[in-house]
């Protein structure tokens, strides 16, 4: 909602922030307004804004990292010291605590108040919910405050999240709690994995960080495909559910043209056709991208036999450039306890191979790029599958040795043999 000009953070006499004020212009909410408001209660926030202003002016970052750990934990606190401590004494120690959020970020107001109260009591009381890390971040604690806040948080049923070379706090979309597209119980999965791997989350020991994000369907509201080493994405096998009455209603309402323009031609694999008032979907070629379902959400639904696809390897630039994930397990059921055991067994095997053979600061995607997917699959005991594609083929020429004519070393003068593909071999499955 647009705010009126005079609504913006009223100026605190201690503040001199012309560059930051620019960020308040425009109709959007601004962290500067929020912090200005808050600086009336907490003096260190005014110093924080002044230091940030100085950073903007000189294009320099005045924070230094250090190490601070709560007893028994190897991570969860991002410790920062200010280089300008003599000018801004309250910023001398300004640490951030990472807190594991509830699955799907569903808080009750009571819990949210509780969290805010604790952070306000022991520190600057700035909360950031939620960045790409997926944690709830509480900013502005000094050393003593960090320990006191951690005690208090744990007494109230919160726990610290992951940082450093550890499993990071899991993140998932709201899934079956609120969304009809969800193909599996994302919140249960997130909670189960957090509890199962809590040691790996609290005590860093990997080569480098490992993130798991969980989305109920290919719409990927948790940003898993680009933002996590191991996205778990909901999908289905077999035919999509079609309600033909609703399809006819939809066509009646919007017109055939609308359906052709927005559904049929926008299917990435062109596998939908329109027969009169009936949609026909070639399920063999559907890649479960969710587009048609999003548009005609009343008429179409994901198929009945649902499960997850597990991918690997998204990361930002470090050893190699940014990558997105690619498929490692095309389909896995995720309903019974046994299914969950299969999932953890798979994760264990991948971690073991990565951890035994990875190099320092090498994420699993870079590791696979270095050793090759074949070696990785062999090391983890996973069967190769044609669906494990990183990018689509650009050359149409394929050399299948077993299909090629037998005598490669034949003399040049010989007529090349022409190999005819048996037509029957095309109609194998289905």
């Amino acid at each position: 909602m647009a705010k009126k000009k005079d609504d913006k953070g009223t100026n605190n006499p201690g503040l001199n922030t012309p560059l930051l004020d620019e960020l308040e212009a425009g109709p959007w909410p601004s962290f500067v307004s929020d912090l200005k408001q808050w600086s009336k209660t907490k003096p260190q926030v005014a110093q924080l804004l002044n230091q940030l202003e100085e950073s903007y002016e000189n294009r320099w970052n005045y924070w230094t990292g250090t190490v601070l750990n709560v007893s028994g934990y190897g991570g969860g606190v991002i410790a920062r010291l200010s280089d300008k401590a003599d000018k801004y004494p309250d910023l001398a120690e300004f640490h951030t605590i990472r807190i594991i959020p509830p699955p799907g970020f569903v808080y009750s107001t009571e819990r949210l108040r509780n969290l805010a109260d604790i952070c306000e009591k022991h520190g600057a009381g700035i909360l950031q919910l939620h960045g790409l890390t997926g944690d709830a971040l509480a900013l502005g604690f000094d050393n003593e405050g960090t320990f006191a806040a951690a005690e208090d948080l744990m007494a109230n049923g919160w726990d610290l999240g992951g940082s450093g070379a550890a499993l990071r706090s899991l993140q998932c979309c709201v899934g079956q709690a609120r969304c009809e597209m969800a193909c599996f119980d994302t919140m249960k999965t997130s909670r189960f994995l957090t509890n199962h791997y809590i040691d790996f989350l609290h005590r860093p020991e990997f080569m480098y960080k490992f993130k798991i994000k969980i989305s109920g369907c290919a719409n990927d509201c948790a940003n898993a495909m680009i933002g996590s080493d191991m996205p778990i994405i909901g999908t289905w096998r077999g035919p999509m559910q079609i309600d033909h009455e609703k399809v006819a209603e939809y066509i009646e309402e919007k017109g055939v043209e609308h359906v052709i323009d927005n559904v049929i031609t926008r299917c990435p694999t062109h596998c939908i056709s329109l027969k009169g008032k009936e949609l026909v979907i070639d399920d063999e070629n559907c890649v479960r991208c969710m587009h048609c379902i999003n548009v005609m959400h009343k008429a179409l639904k994901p198929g009945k036999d649902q499960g997850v696809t597990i991918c690997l390897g998204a990361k930002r630039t470090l050893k190699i450039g940014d990558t997105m994930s690619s498929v490692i397990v095309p389909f896995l059921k995720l309903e019974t306890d046994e299914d969950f055991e299969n999932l953890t067994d798979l994760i264990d095997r991948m971690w073991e191979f990565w951890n035994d053979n990875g190099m320092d600061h090498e994420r699993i995607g870079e590791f696979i790029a270095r050793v090759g997917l074949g070696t990785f699959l062999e090391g983890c005991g996973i069967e190769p599958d044609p669906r494990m594609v990183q990018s689509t083929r650009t050359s149409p020429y394929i050399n299948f040795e077993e299909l090629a004519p037998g005598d490669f070393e034949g003399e040049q003068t010989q007529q090349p043999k022409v190999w005819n593909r048996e037509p029957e071999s095309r109609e194998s499955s289905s």
Partner: protein
Amino acid sequence: MAIEVNGKMIEIDEEGFLVDRDDWSEEVSEAIANRDGIDLKDEHVGLIDYFRDYYEEHQVHPTMHVLVQRIGGKIGKKFREHKEYEKFLYMLFPSDPVSELCKLAGLPKPLPSEHDG
């Protein structure tokens, strides 16, 4: 800051790391452990020796990864079983085992990992 060992004053920094690493001796390490409230037993001393040897050989301190792989790797066959060793380390040194061991072994303070995000 300084601590007294056998009547000699040994210079340490705020967190207890030695200022001059040549000052290290078993008594010094014991004194620092006392300061941090750790009762040195054979397990602790063995690890301190391991840290010193490792540092001499590689010029870096062992990371948690190295500890869990090399020493923990002797427990059981599976990855999960190796992790048990980490639990044991946190029992010996509840606040950050690697940093504490560096301190007791008279090694430089470990650097923060450069990528937190």
